[in-house]
């Protein structure tokens, strides 16, 4: 059997897309065919384990449903990249489309996605390039940041429905990812410079448009990242 033939037969078999009958021309013992099925089980377990590590709050919120969601995700959007974090690409959109009525779930998936995005420095593969995307602003209807912190520190907690605007950022000095609940000046300054925050963000925290003074925005932005708190990985 040539390598090309082997991979053509083995890949769908190991994915569970083809049955063992594809191997009828080979002489495999029952022990070995059982072993191939065992590989299928291991792979599903590894997909669940990977997505659980990347989206811990989503796993908690979905509970027993998480296993089936992972199976569906892996069947429609498998990653071929060597970096396991690539399994996360698009998962938040998948969750949002599958559970349109569960805002806390969609927001939790989104928060984990931007954490991962912030955590990955680009200079690892482009030495000398230092203009990493280090921070993103989000407006949520639930305090998913608090629930994420609770999940990471032990027992899961309920996700409170409460509007919040977050900056998720990676500290330039420690390399760790944090959540930061900005005051309005920080939020507006960050949003104007990055083009990601909007007046809706400002209104969500009770500010009015006159607060958008360009001088103040520049001033606050200069000190923003250096003033961020540091601490444990993924600290809030």
């Amino acid at each position, binding site marked *: *059997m*040539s*390598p*090309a033939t*082997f*991979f053509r*037969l*083995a*890949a769908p078999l*190991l*994915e569970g897309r083809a049955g063992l009958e594809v*191997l009828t021309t*080979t*002489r*495999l*013992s029952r*022990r*070995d*065919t*059982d*072993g*191939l099925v*065992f*590989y299928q*089980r*291991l*792979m599903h377990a*590894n*997909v669940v384990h*990977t997505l659980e590590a990347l989206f811990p709050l989503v796993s908690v919120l979905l509970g027993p449903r998480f296993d089936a969601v992972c199976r569906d995700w892996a069947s429609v959007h*498998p*990653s*071929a*990249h*060597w*970096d*396991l974090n690539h*399994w996360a690409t698009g998962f938040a959109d998948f969750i949002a489309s599958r559970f349109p009525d569960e805002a806390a779930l969609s927001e939790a998936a989104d928060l984990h996605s931007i954490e991962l995005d912030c955590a*990955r*420095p680009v*200079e*690892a*593969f482009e*030495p000398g390039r230092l203009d990493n995307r280090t921070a993103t602003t989000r407006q949520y209807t639930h305090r998913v940041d608090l629930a994420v912190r609770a999940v990471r520190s032990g027992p899961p907690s309920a996700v409170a429905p409460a509007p919040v605007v977050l900056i998720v950022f990676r*500290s*330039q*000095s*420690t*390399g*760790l990812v944090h959540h930061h609940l900005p005051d309005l000046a920080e939020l507006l300054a960050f949003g104007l410079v990055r083009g990601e925050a909007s007046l809706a963000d400002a209104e969500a925290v009770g500010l009015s448009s006159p607060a958008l003074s360009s001088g103040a925005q520049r001033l606050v932005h200069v000190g923003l990242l250096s003033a961020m708190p540091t601490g444990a990985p993924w600290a809030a």
Partner: protein
Amino acid sequence: MALSGVGIGLRRELADALVKTSRRVDWLELIPENVIAVHGRTEQQLERLAERVGIASHGVALNVAGPTPLPMELLRGIRRLDERYQFPLVSEHLCWSTTSERNFLDLLPVPFTEAFVRHVAARVNVIQDVLGRQMLLENISAYARMPGAELDEGAFTRAVLAETGAGLLLDVNNVFVTATNLGLEPLELLHSLPLESAREIHVAGHHRRHGRLVDSHGAPVADEVLALYAEALRRTGPLPTLLEWDTDIPALDVVLDEADRVRAVLDEATRDLSSAGVAA
């Protein structure tokens, strides 16, 4: 810095304690995929540890025997890490894990055929050319034979090493797990491997699941594996040995206690070989 004694895997969960510990740690082994993109505090920890002990590289994602083009971005990243930390040993697994459509998130065996010897050897030669050095290839744990085998694992591995000049990373736990799962004698499988090319040994714990042994790296080393390790050392002579612990990672002291247990076997084998006139 040549490696000797018993090292442990450098894992994020252990890094803080490793920086602080005064206990014996002979050497460390990192997974390059996990550190290629680190910076800040994690990078500083790595620098501090590298000043104290030798660090080897043990990759998991090059897809050495796979059908897709080699991940050159990753390969060049490993080379940059090697230039920075001067790894005494660089290793990967003799397996495949990825097609053009999917990373299977596992280390999968290939059929042991002459065609696969040529396929794998060509890719290993490219890897060694890019790295500019010899690499070691590890025998993996298997849960089934792949169809179409013409050779046994030992003959297949020997042929790949002969075609490439690569060395063997002998994983003794994998020998035990594979042999048990495939109905082979662990000692026979061990002796069939090209032990004369071994440059490093791995030991680890395993679990039993659904009637099979799984190479979980999440438990103390089984007594049977330590016995097999002692037998391997009689054939290879003393080699740097790594205790792998990657799941359900306990406190550093527990890992180091286990490393001490492995070191006792290594020390005894070294003494026996010395008294028998075999150079250590």
